């Protein structure tokens, strides 16, 4: 497929072109010292050099708070209105990393499992994803251990690679990606084929094929207690994770009207599974942390055929007590190796 070139210093021009073409442009933008995916409203805001934003792109498809129903009371009757967005705004996310992009098809399987969650899919359809290959990955990165790559294309409509001269090489991967190239006409030029592309290396930290067989056999193992005794049971890991998708549904209302709201939840919270009776199937930190790892590396694989981790390293880098999921899973792989 033909590749295109965006020369150094012309990113803003491309963004302007995309906005002129009717796209809402979302990119890593600084917010109080952290980077998050936000709509670009001013020149120079988009920071494609940011390796790891505080939160993943999932919130643009699966917002942290989302009404599914609005209703009004009228005596004993209730009038309801669905919260499903009719036609979400045409959006382009530019500057996510291949790991984040890879989380999208991974979550498609869940949101399309028998019941198709249009809240997710309507935004998916309205959104074009432009990922940027990682030229300088860091020690938290482990995409290559979970089947990804710093220049992976899964989930992306267009892949950008940094070039040695400070520009980017653009490779459209889908129809939506080609539409971006069209919209960028005048700013983009056809690549010469001689550009030197910068892509970093992410060393493989564990052998994924060793992990699941061990998990299958070791639901009960001292390892779980050993690694999780210090977990604070906060929800950071789940909330910053591109693939964590558990949510809660709650009503909020006054005497006249109300909303039913879907909001992010975490399996690390003690009340996540607590029954009305008080019985809690996962009463302790180790059982909850085990669920987090098991769900990603075992159950999701059984159910949907993919590992629910893309190796972005966010949960590790933002964990208050420095729990590192890569080390935890590498530990599993080691145990698997040594138990042979």
């Amino acid at each position, binding site marked *: 497929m033909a590749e295109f070139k965006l020369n150094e210093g012309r990113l803003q021009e491309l963004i302007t072109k995309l906005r002129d073409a009717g796209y809402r442009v979302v990119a890593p933008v600084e917010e109080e010292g952290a980077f998050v995916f936000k709509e670009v409203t001013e020149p120079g805001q988009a920071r494609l050099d940011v390796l790891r934003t505080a939160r993943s792109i999932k*919130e*643009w498809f699966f*917002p*942290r*708070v*989302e009404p599914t129903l609005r209703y009004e009371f009228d005596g004993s009757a209730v009038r309801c209105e669905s919260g499903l*967005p009719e036609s*979400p*705004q045409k*959006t382009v996310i530019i500057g996510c990393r291949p790991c984040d992009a890879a989380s999208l098809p991974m979550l498609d399987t869940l949101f399309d499992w028998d019941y198709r969650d249009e809240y997710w899919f309507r*935004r998916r359809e309205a959104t074009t994803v432009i990922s940027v290959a990682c030229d300088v990955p860091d020690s938290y990165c482990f995409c290559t251990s979970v089947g990804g790559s710093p220049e992976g294309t899964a989930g992306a409509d267009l892949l950008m690679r940094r070039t040695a001269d400070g520009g980017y090489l653009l490779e459209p991967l889908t129809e939506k990606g080609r539409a971006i190239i069209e919209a960028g006409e005048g700013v983009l030029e056809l690549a010469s084929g001689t550009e030197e592309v910068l892509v970093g290396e992410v060393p493989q930290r564990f052998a994924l094929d060793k992990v699941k067989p061990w998990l299958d056999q070791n639901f009960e193992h001292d390892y779980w207690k050993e690694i999780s005794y210090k977990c604070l049971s906060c929800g950071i890991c789940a909330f910053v994770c591109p693939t964590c998708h558990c949510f809660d549904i709650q009503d909020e209302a*006054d005497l006249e009207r109300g909303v039913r709201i879907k909001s992010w939840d975490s399996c690390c919270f003690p009340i996540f599974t607590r029954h009305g009776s008080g019985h809690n199937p996962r009463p302790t930190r180790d059982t909850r942390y085990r669920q987090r790892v098991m769900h990603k590396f075992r159950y999701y694989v059984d159910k949907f055929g993919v590992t629910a981790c893309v190796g972005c390293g966010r949960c590790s880098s933002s964990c208050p007590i420095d729990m590192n999921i890569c080390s935890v899973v590498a530990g599993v792989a080691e145990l698997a190796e040594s138990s042979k």
Partner: protein
Amino acid sequence: MAEKEWTPKIVAFVCNWCTYAGADLAGTSRLKYDVNIRPIKLPCTGRIDPLFIVKAFEQGADGVLVSGCHPGDCHYTSGNYHARRRWIVFSELLRFLGIHEDRVQFAWVSAAEGAKWADLVNEVVAKVRELGPFTAYRELDSAEVVS
């Protein structure tokens, strides 16, 4: 919904023993005062959690009045002393957040002070009326989180 002319909605958290009795006295004494107040009776000012006030604003109150027995007169000996410390701190927190001090007002009204209650309500209502509807808080509701 049809736009009605705005009148302040004020929730008054009052203690059972002094202020509620004082308000009762105002009534039996046929004192006239503004009708914009919705009193909620609690055993003691010590029972009033700051969250009650937050909830009142969440549910559309434009102002809140907290009132109980004068210091030294608490039916439970010291409930209002504890409450006083709490309100000193809480009112500072609200002010720090940028909420005008007249949005939440505090008073001591005894069972004998029917007239003080009537005047107090008029004063509170007048001040909140001057501030206008608490749209800043209500707008929190409509703010969209993402997309």
